């Protein structure tokens, strides 16, 4: 559901089988005691890199929409996002 990848009948068994094999391997991490170890999210010592907030040229609306599967009046067009009640 979270992944929105559209599983179809038959897919579940196929992936469940493979994923449980992978998760069995991953379970070995539980053997390690990491109580006093800090997590590493990234490995180089840069933090909160900021740049000057200066306006600069960017893509035009036309360029930004050039790859859009559907566009109307300068917007991306999507199907309805709410059900009619």
């Amino acid at each position: 559901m979270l992944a929105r990848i559209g599983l179809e009948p038959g897919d579940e068994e196929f992936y469940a089988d493979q994923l449980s094999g992978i998760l069995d391997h991953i379970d070995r991490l539980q053997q390690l005691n990491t109580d006093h170890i800090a997590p590493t999210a990234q490995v180089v010592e840069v933090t909160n890199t900021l740049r000057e907030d200066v306006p600069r040229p960017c893509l035009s609306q036309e360029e930004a929409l050039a790859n859009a599967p559907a566009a109307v009046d300068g917007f991306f067009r999507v199907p309805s996002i709410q059900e009619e009640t």
Partner: protein
Amino acid sequence: MDPTKLTIGELGQLLRDREFSAQELVLLHFDRIEEVDGEVRAYLRLTQELAYEQARIADLAIKTGEAGPLTGIPMAVKDVLCVKGVETTAGSQILRGFKPPYTGTAVQRLFDAGAVMLGVTNCDEFAMGSSTENSGYFPTHNPWNFDRVPGGSSGGSAAAVAAGAATFGLGTDTGGSIRQPAALCGVVGMKPTYGRVSRYGLIAFASSLDQIGPFTRSVEDCALVLETMTGHDPLDATSANRPNDVRRDLAAGVEGMRLGLPKEYFDVAGMETGVKVAVDHALRVLESAGAKLVEVSLPHTDYGLAAYYIIAPAECSSNLARFDGVKFGMSEQDAQNITDLYTRTRRKGFGTEVRRRVMLGTYALSSGYYDAYYVKAQKVRTLIKRDFDEAFAKCDAIVSATSPTVAFPIGSKTQDPLSMYLCDVLTLGGNLAGLPGVSIPCGMSEGLPVGLQVLAPQWREDIALRVARAYEVASDMRVEVALV
């Protein structure tokens, strides 16, 4: 002398000496591609028009004496690096038809240096794989043996350089995706330190691990291409602002250097005898050249794969959320509602391996499992990084095989994802710790190339390249082009 078999250094000299023009060189390469790529299938798309235009400009620069070392040199670009107006699909059907509105920084710097792009090379879908069999288009074949994989995920670029279908290539390396195909195809390949090369314009797989790097036919060429791409870029906040010193002391040799041999990397499961023999021989060559071999230990090696297969899928599941049928690429337009659009587009557009990793990643990040999987893996990442820090206190560089095996038969690992993941067991530690690593050919086993990996501390590409160069000189190694 066949120009499709030469190094950048050799070709640059011949171009400046007017032995042939850049436009003639492009023509020769398209002839070579025509000759070999029906079987190798390294390229997804050729960019003839762009190549001839860039070659024309290169010839002008040569004529006016403004040519640099990369002027007119033909290159292959992996299908994950955006080039303005050139269809770029990350090896996936979901991006079919996508033409980026801009060119990524690394490629732009090579264009600015005069390199000529021949085409877009095949890869595993979203760079997820170790064989290029997960491409959403077709598999690529190893130029040394068409029944074997070229490695992956950057298999197309590696195969192109090995087959004489480009002088150098670009790849990306998240867990070994440059070094492993370089080893399996018998060329030089390098993953730089995380942050060395800007990732702007790279279609993201796992953002804390991804780096762009070169495939070449010599260590000197590798240093040159890397040096050209390197440098701070305001458009990638993780790109480092550091001196461009990657080729410092390149030719200084290894006299007195301490090379660490991690015992866990030599005892790894599935290590082939032929690989072991070739690597042992390479170590003797380095020793004869004056290096001191010391045993080191990376005690958490056995946990690297497990940590990697949480962190990389977690990051990919988040990065790939943008492929939703709204902004670019494939879109199932007759969907009933927005959720249906997302689900049907992703169902149709993503291949098996991508779906597997997105599922694994969303699972590891979901509430209730986040601490047990994702945070745990990040803590183990700390332990792995610490292993390398401690090893580098005892040595200047770490040397091992790049891959425990030579190129394996096409289809032999596709049914068992874990066996495919194990291909990267000697390379993914370098990504988790952000280290630079180079793979260079060090002999053959069963008629297939073997790669030697040199890992160095962060920001010490110069050391990795210096060791590789010393091996190249001492062994008289020359990258051979397959399919002569």
